[in-house]
């Protein structure tokens, strides 16, 4: 049988596509569960960074609710809710979105804050990252309720938190975002923990 050349070419493209897409599909299936497990572990790992282990005995990564723009992970100990971790994103940084994990215990204290993703200027704004500096630890144990609204600001704005030399916008964005999340937590505590 002699097919015209374009048919042979089309047939070859089809055959190659089938084989390559097939191998991608097989790889996808072989790795799917492992990848999901890795992601789960990685999520747990980052959640543990903002909430110490004595706060919970449940699987943090699975007790999760969505409230407005926040994804909220709830920590439970001996059947009672003890704290929540809010994921939050602010666009008020210097360059693009900054996403945060903010842990707040039921008595309104910040248990920890971590920056998950950012594109801030290397060497200036990137000190918000725990890998670069300890700045973000300044939030630990700060109370949403006891601190006045004025204190929740960078020093340049009259508040308690350091800014960086040459970069005020980035820390300001984070401080304001943590404050916002804290207020949200305070106002919606009933709904979050019901």
């Amino acid at each position, binding site marked *: 049988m002699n097919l015209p050349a374009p048919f042979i*070419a089309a047939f070859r*493209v089809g055959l190659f596509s089938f084989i390559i897409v097939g191998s991608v599909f097989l790889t996808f299936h072989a*790795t799917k569960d492992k990848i999901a497990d890795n992601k789960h572990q990685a999520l747990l790992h980052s959640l543990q960074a903002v909430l110490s282990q004595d706060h919970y005995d449940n699987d943090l990564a699975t007790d999760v609710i969505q409230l407005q723009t926040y994804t909220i992970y709830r920590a439970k100990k001996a059947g009672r809710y003890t704290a929540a971790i809010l994921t939050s994103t602010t666009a008020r940084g210097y360059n693009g979105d900054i996403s945060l994990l903010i842990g707040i215990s039921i008595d309104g204290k910040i248990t920890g804050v971590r920056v998950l993703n950012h594109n801030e200027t290397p*060497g200036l704004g990137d000190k918000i990252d725990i890998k670069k500096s300890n700045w973000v630890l300044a939030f630990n144990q700060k109370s949403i309720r006891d601190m006045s609204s004025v204190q929740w600001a960078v020093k340049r704005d009259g508040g308690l938190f350091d800014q960086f030399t040459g970069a005020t916008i980035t820390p300001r964005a984070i401080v304001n975002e943590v404050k916002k999340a804290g207020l949200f937590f305070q106002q919606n505590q009933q709904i979050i923990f019901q």
Partner: protein
Amino acid sequence: MATNANTIIRNGLWKNNQALVALLGLCPLLAVSNTVINSLGLGIATTLTLVLSNGLVSSLRSYILPEIRLPLFVLMIAGIVTIIELTMSAWFYQLYLTLGIFIPLIVTNCAIIGRAEVFASKNRILPSLLDGLAMGLGFSFALLLLGAFRELLGAGTLFSQADLLFGESAKNWQINIFDDYSGILLALLPPGAFIALGLLIALKNAFATQ
């Protein structure tokens, strides 16, 4: 046809260096070369992709009709990169978290389709694998030089964040060249990448003409 092993290696590492002579793959090259460790990561991933794609193209070259070769190359390279990405995220998750963002960038590296077209589709499998390796190493070499230059000028360090690639034990590999160095920010930003690459090419040409 240059299938002699010596020629292949010399072409890949120096004479036809994909980054410094052919100027291919500049998108990942400039985007990721801000630290030595990032450069090394992208270098490894690119080299692996080049070797695999050259090997695959070469072993299938008699089935690849000339008029459909480009779509098939693209298909094969995209397939290989996706499989590498999935495999890494399953079994080398920590490494994937660092390199993950670079892996899709490899698809944009025209050096890979370039080698498939120029070399692998016309040569036997062993020379093709060697060509992929040599070209990959040459590309990594340029990446590492760029990364070292930019990290040194931009942050005054070398090998910072080595733990991302080599695990926890590598945390203290960081070398601080200057104490209390404020850094030339330009070197870390995209314009710095272009300037550094320009200097590197000039340097290479100066060596080559001697």
